[in-house]
């Protein structure tokens, strides 16, 4: 069974088809780099896979189940364009809140553990609105990983991260892959993404222009997929 299966998904904004018959199968334990130019439909696709939006046609399955099922949501971690943590709560309060919402046995202990892993334990009681951008990004990473999801959906996760946050995220993603978790990430940072990826999908104007395993040539020349398959 695929970890993530996208079957003939269309999405319309008015009459405009943002996604056109997208089909992808992401095997468990793999890392899919979802690449494409701005407006290609990467974020739209990730939001549909995460269950934030419903497809106009087609369907998405995560381990065989619809993304909006409660048990499916428990298995998914998402990092989007926003950090999805509350400015007016402390780092510890934010993570404890999400730990409770995800039904963790000991939300506070999990929160403290992830604050330590992301290097935020010293500022655990500080309000997020007082954090630097890098600290906020690390907290967002901690929030997404807090409930040990089986599938990680990451929308341009390396964008606007400072060096430390990039290092933290890369370490966590490698650990996640080593534990057999599945990652789908959209990105413009081809080099970082292709180093981690086992598969690559190129979206072009809402369609899958290329989907296949990542090859050593792609790592050596990150622009290769664009050069071969992208239409201008």
């Amino acid at each position: 069974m695929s970890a993530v299966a996208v079957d003939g998904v269309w999405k319309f904004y008015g009459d405009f088809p943002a996604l056109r018959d997208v089909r992808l199968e992401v095997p468990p334990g793999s890392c899919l780099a979802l690449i494409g130019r701005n407006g290609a439909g990467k974020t739209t696709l990730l939001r549909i896979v995460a269950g934030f939006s419903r497809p106009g046609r087609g369907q998405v399955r995560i381990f065989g189940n619809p993304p909006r099922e409660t048990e499916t949501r428990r298995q998914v971690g998402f990092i989007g364009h926003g950090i999805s943590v509350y400015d007016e709560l402390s780092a510890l309060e934010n993570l404890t809140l999400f730990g409770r919402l995800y039904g963790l046995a000991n939300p506070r202990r999990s929160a403290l553990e992830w604050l330590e892993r992301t290097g935020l334990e010293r500022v655990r009681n500080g309000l997020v609105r007082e954090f630097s951008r890098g600290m906020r990004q690390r907290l967002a990473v901690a929030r997404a990983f807090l409930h040990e999801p089986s599938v990680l959906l990451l929308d341009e996760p390396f964008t606007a991260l400072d060096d430390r946050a990039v290092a933290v995220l890369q370490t966590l993603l490698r650990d996640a892959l080593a534990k057999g978790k599945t990652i789908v990430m959209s990105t413009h940072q081809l080099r970082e993404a292709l180093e981690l990826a086992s598969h690559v999908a190129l979206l072009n104007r809402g369609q899958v222009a290329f989907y296949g395993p990542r090859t050593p040539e792609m790592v050596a020349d990150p622009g290769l997929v664009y050069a071969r398959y992208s239409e201008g």
Partner: protein
Amino acid sequence: MGFFRQVFVIAVKDLRAEIRTKEAINASFAFALVILLLFSFAFDPSAETTREISGGLLWIVFAFAGALVLNRSFARELPNDCLDALIAAPISGAALFLGKALANFLLVSAVELVSLPVFGIFYNVRWTSQFWELMLVLALGTWALTVIGTIFSALTVNIRLREVMLPMLTYPILVPALLGAMQLTTDLVAGRPIGPDTAAWLKMLIGFDVVYTAVSLVLVETVLVG
């Protein structure tokens, strides 16, 4: 985590955030007090006239002051895309909705409980003679306001003119509940208990709350995810 625990977690989160920022509650308090003050200067009514308009006056104040609280309900999730994190969490849309409605109910009730003594002082009215019945009507009317306001806050959260749209959408639907609450409040402030001739308004208010709470719980998932 059980459904009611989820509701409680969401409500506490919203209340904590509001208590820290005081974005909505300060504006709502100030608005309610200013309107009560201005009306008392503008009309200088006698005690008898005041009793006759008390229900209308109070519920106009509560409805408009409440809109300031309700506008923030889902809008507070927009910075940092926090709404995505809530939608992604394994909690039902109904729990999310009820948690927010409960937090809004407590905030709007706080505004009302401060406004009532101010109303009594400015208008020289003894409003406590039917205290518990008045509290019941306030609770029912406020729940109607917050249920409708919260579901429309979710519906309008991504609209640019949501501050304008929310009152425009909620007040027409609230008309029956506001009519009932106004009528009952007028009688109770005047010292008349709820009797056979006004019980129908109370039943209508209860029915409104039950029906619109049920409808909102059914619709909220569609409203949030589409």
